[in-house]
């Protein structure tokens, strides 16, 4: 081959140019639309008159606290204008016309990591190509599958759905079944209360997930990929399907843009509710048209998964993360969905570099550690992080799926604990006895937990050891954590 690797990408960029500057992106997506951000599209277009075509809609950039918002891209700088409902659009228009005030350098241009393109593109292929989409794939295609797997292993990538299993190992397990058709399942069900990261990724940068899928395909070789998206995340699904169509038209999906043949079918499926549907074996049953209940393990999915085929199940964030494999070094970050009693709730890409602490995370969100009673980490399967731990460094494994709710001074911790137990009871699928009966019993015992400490401890053991899946297996965790950390809260 005489062609150099940059050529296919250069051709694509020429064919699909980015939208020109200056321009305004109005942040919609689920978060923007919940605050009726669409009206600012009209207002801005009216205000710009014959330059109305410089106003585009974009997804959320993760800064939910700022919504409804719009970002102006003007020459070499960008600036996001927050809370248009309070501040109006005058400053946005002024900035578009060249007067951006003193804070003109606010957001910088493009960051690193998974969120670098969120809210910075108008949903066109050209925009994301200009911002680095498919560069990692382009480079990986010059490598063998083993070389790519080695690079992913060296980058230390682990599963971001919560289990943090090494990505390269999982891919190798499935890839070892050379004589059988292999399956990829992308878990974007995201049914854990308090988590909203995959929605942001799919709404704001769906091409990153497609690139991750194609990287996995290059490493393992799949017959089919199923992308399983939460049933309520309709904007995420529409955005992902639009991106698939763009990638198909640009001959990225079939590989012919690189003069290759990828030979991969990609199917999109929606879930239909239920916390248990985020459990990976439940997704397999759901896709097969069976009742959505967990499966026994072993066999593990990498040996016998979807349709009894060797199957890789990866969280959407995991596959998005893998696209940073050639960054030097890959950014050790985790998406954290942060809500609760903080001034700036939203999606954060947090460095997990050994230097960032819980107090640092609170500071990012504008919260004072002194006003925080606890941080609920991991929702109904989670634990409480207490003030004495706030100076501890964040660890990738310890962050689970990254759902954090900050419980301020006035939060009723016992009530939160009881609500989580009740949620687990409602969401138990009933397939196994420990969870079906145990979660009900837990709610009863929590009415007077101090008198039932031993029974609760024993029940937690039964749930942990005897449940079929991790919904039941981890249902006792918040209760155990609560009774250990703040038993007095249950006395009132």
């Amino acid at each position, binding site marked *: 081959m005489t062609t150099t690797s940059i050529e296919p990408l250069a051709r694509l960029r020429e064919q699909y140019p980015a939208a020109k500057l200056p321009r305004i992106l109005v942040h919609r997506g*689920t*978060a923007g*639309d*919940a*605050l009726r951000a669409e009206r600012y599209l009209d207002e801005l277009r009216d205000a710009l008159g014959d330059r109305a075509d410089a106003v585009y809609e974009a997804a959320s950039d993760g800064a*939910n*606290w700022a*919504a409804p918002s719009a970002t102006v891209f003007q020459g070499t700088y960008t600036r996001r204008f927050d809370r248009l409902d309070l501040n109006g659009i005058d400053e946005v228009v002024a900035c578009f016309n060249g007067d951006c005030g003193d804070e003109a350098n606010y957001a910088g241009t493009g960051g690193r990591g998974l969120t670098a393109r969120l809210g910075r593109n108008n949903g066109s292929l050209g925009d994301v190509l200009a911002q680095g989409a498919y560069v990692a794939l382009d480079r990986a295609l010059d490598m063998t599958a083993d070389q790519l797997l080695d690079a992913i292993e060296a980058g230390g990538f682990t599963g971001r759905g919560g289990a943090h299993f090494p990505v390269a190992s999982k891919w190798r397990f499935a890839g070892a079944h050379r004589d059988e058709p292999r399956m990829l399942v992308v878990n974007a069900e*995201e049914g854990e*209360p*308090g*988590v*909203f990261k995959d*929605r942001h990724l799919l709404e704001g940068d769906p091409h990153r997930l497609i690139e991750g899928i194609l990287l996995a395909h290059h490493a393992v070789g799949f017959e089919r990929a199923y992308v399983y998206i*939460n*049933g*309520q*995340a309709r904007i995420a699904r529409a955005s992902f399907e639009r991106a698939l169509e763009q990638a198909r038209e640009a001959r990225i999906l079939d590989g012919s843009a690189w003069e290759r043949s990828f030979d991969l079918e990609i199917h999109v*499926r*929606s*879930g*239909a*509710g*239920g916390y248990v*549907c985020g459990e990976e074996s439940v997704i397999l049953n*759901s*896709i*097969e*048209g*069976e*009742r*959505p*209940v967990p499966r026994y393990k072993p066999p593990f999915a990498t040996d016998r998964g979807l349709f009894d085929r060797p199957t890789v199940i990866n969280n959407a964030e995991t596959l998005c993360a893998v696209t940073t494999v050639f960054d030097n070094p890959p950014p050790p970050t985790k998406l954290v*969905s*942060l*809500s*609760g*009693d903080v001034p700036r*709730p*939203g*999606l954060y890409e947090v460095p997990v570099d050994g230097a960032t602490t819980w107090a640092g995370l609170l500071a990012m969100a504008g919260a004072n550690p002194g006003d925080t009673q606890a941080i*609920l980490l991991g*929702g109904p399967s989670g634990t409480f992080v207490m003030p004495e731990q706030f100076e501890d460094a964040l660890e990738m494994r310890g962050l689970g799926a990254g759902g954090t*709710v900050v*419980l*301020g001074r006035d*939060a009723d911790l016992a*009530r*939160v604990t009881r*609500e*989580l137990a009740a*949620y687990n009871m*409602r*969401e138990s*699928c009933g397939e196994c006895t420990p969870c079906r009966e145990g979660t009900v019993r837990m709610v009863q015992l929590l009415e007077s937990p101090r008198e039932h400490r031993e029974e609760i401890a024993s029940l937690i053991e039964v749930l942990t050891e005897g449940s079929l899946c991790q919904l039941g297996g981890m249902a006792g965790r918040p209760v155990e954590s609560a009774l250990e950390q703040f038993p007095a809260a249950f006395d009132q």
Partner: protein
Amino acid sequence: MRLMTEDTPPFDLDAMQDGMSGVDALPRDREQLLPALQAMHDALHWLPREAISYVASHIRVPLSEVYATTTAYSELRLEPPVPGQWHVCTGVACDLAGADALLEAAPTAARIDCQFLCALAPVVTDEHERLFGRVTADELRERAGA
């Protein structure tokens, strides 16, 4: 669970026709069971017995198994939605942000589990499942007409 009897609420025949067309467009494979139920649900906004029977015969799965599957998914309704029904999210973040006050302000609103918009708590949904973030009691009272 409500028994299916002669009293099954009426459904919109045009919507049923749309749902049937949606189901007909799908291959008759077991893996299309959930997509077929969703095609019906998208058209009718709930699943009357007739819709479930139609899916069962198209996918060629016993009706009992289709019911077992249908009842396992919380978003698939077996009763027609209540017109004008608002829901208040009661996930942890919304609970902290005052979901109770919203339920008091709009007594006809119902509770609903986490809507995954925690950073814009408190969150409510209207009868079309449209999300509204950072809702105040006054705003909900006005919108829900309570």
